């Protein structure tokens, strides 16, 4: 099973996770820029974080044979802090980079005027940089947030096929489906979506435009939920090719629209080609436990 996790916050994860993910079949991932749990108070805090996403974290992932990509944006939660809003001015520098495969996570948290302003501006940036957009949907009042999200996407002129609306559930999936956007599902131990409910949604509406992610971060979450969803699909009678489509070919198709992927899309099913683990496993500081 080859896996592309289209949404996981590796900055918050350990090297044990990288090893377990590789063993489960993960060969590529996307790390969306988001909130770190502790609110940021300056633009510099963002730029250091973005630098890590295109620098250290990409290198760290490569040590474990995993191609690391990221999305860059001012997230909805911090869009409400005027001290952070100026980060919008530095985004273009990062949106031009290799491996930056979307603008994101953008969208709503509390549905404020400030959030909408940042969201609209960043949809414009996606159009300007010819990048897909990754849209976070709110944890509270998800249905209304999703509805307003789709209105803004339509107004932006960004093609629906260039947009993934994430963290969907049974209540919000159909409106996103009808809009023609990609549907992201975050498989979590307690909240959001679980693998068996995911399988039911796939059985009901098919595999088109579906992205399954672990969205693992600093909270209670599981970076192996992608492979567990693959196993649940097989148990429910889906074929290995169906699993490959959802867990590998779909994310390649969606993020491939950026022209910025750093992974071989035709990587063999067993992950034997394309990963540069053998070239970089030796002599790196992480695997030897050396830290300065």
């Amino acid at each position, binding site marked *: 099973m080859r896996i592309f996790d289209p949404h996981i916050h590796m900055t918050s994860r350990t090297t044990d996770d990288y090893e377990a993910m590789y063993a489960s079949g993960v060969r590529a991932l996307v790390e969306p820029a988001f909130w770190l749990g502790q609110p940021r108070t300056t633009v510099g805090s963002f730029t250091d974080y973005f630098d890590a996403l295109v620098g*250290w974290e990409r*290198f760290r992932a490569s040590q474990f044979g995993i191609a690391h990509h990221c999305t860059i944006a001012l997230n909805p939660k911090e869009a409400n802090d005027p001290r952070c809003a100026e980060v919008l001015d530095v985004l273009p520098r990062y949106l031009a*980079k*290799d491996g930056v495969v979307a603008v994101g996570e953008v969208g709503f948290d509390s549905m404020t005027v400030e959030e909408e302003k940042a969201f609209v501006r960043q949809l414009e940036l996606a159009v300007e940089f010819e990048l897909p957009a990754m849209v976070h949907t709110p944890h509270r009042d998800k249905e209304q947030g999703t509805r307003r999200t789709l209105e803004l996407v339509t107004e932006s002129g960004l093609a629906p096929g260039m947009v993934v609306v994430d963290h969907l559930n049974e209540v919000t999936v159909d409106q996103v489906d009808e809009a023609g956007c990609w549907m992201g599902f975050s498989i979590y131990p307690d909240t959001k979506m679980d693998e068996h409910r995911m399988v039911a949604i796939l059985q009901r509406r098919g595999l088109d435009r579906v992205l399954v992610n672990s969205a693992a971060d600093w909270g209670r979450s599981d970076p192996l939920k992608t492979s567990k969803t693959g196993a649940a699909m097989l148990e429910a009678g889906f074929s290995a090719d169906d699993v490959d489509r959802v867990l590998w070919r779909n994310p390649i198709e969606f993020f491939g629209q950026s022209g910025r992927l750093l992974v071989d899309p035709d990587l063999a099913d067993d992950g034997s080609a394309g990963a540069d683990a053998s070239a970089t496993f030796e002599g790196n500081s992480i695997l030897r436990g050396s830290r300065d």
Partner: protein
Amino acid sequence: MTEIRPLAADDTIRQALDDSAQAQLDALTAEVAEDPSRLGRTFPAAARRTGRGPLAGADDVLLEDAVRVSLVQTAARSLDPEALLAELREVYRYGDNDEKRAVLHALSGAPDDVDGTDLLLDALRTNDTRLVAAAMGPHSDRLDDDSWRQGVLKCLFTGVPVASVTGLARRADRELAEMVQRYRREREAAGRDVPLDVQVVLDACAASPEHHPEQDQHQQEDS
């Protein structure tokens, strides 16, 4: 106005590119030739518009590095050393690690009046082995002795081959030998393998003109 030595000959780079990638390289080069301040705009897209991976016909050179250094070379022709350095600092500051590495390679081919020591020190503070290796290239001649010795030790520590360290035979000295011996003792005490490069550095220290015989004697008494 400033001459930068390329990482690979222009012909070698072009042979690695198909017609469309060559046209892209021409366009990027023309953009930078017309306005050297466009260097930072051309750098991020340079690899995806031309190519990446090992460059045939050049030892241990990546195509994307060679293309980016060639863009620096073009920009440098219309910049004095100070203006070039300002441009490189900006590109390095906002570059991803591939872009940063290319800036370090460009510095390695820079004349004496371009001093990017601050960028080397930044790279040596990271744990990205590709940056550490590039920082210890020819431009590392500008590092003071303390920083240079720490750089060599960091190479041993992170597994960067010391063959990529410029000036090892010339600059290796007694102090470096002592640092490396302490490192070796630490490895041995922990029951860990000692990297083969440890002996390479110690041999270089012993053979170096910086290594005085009377200090040798003293060192043996110490250990």
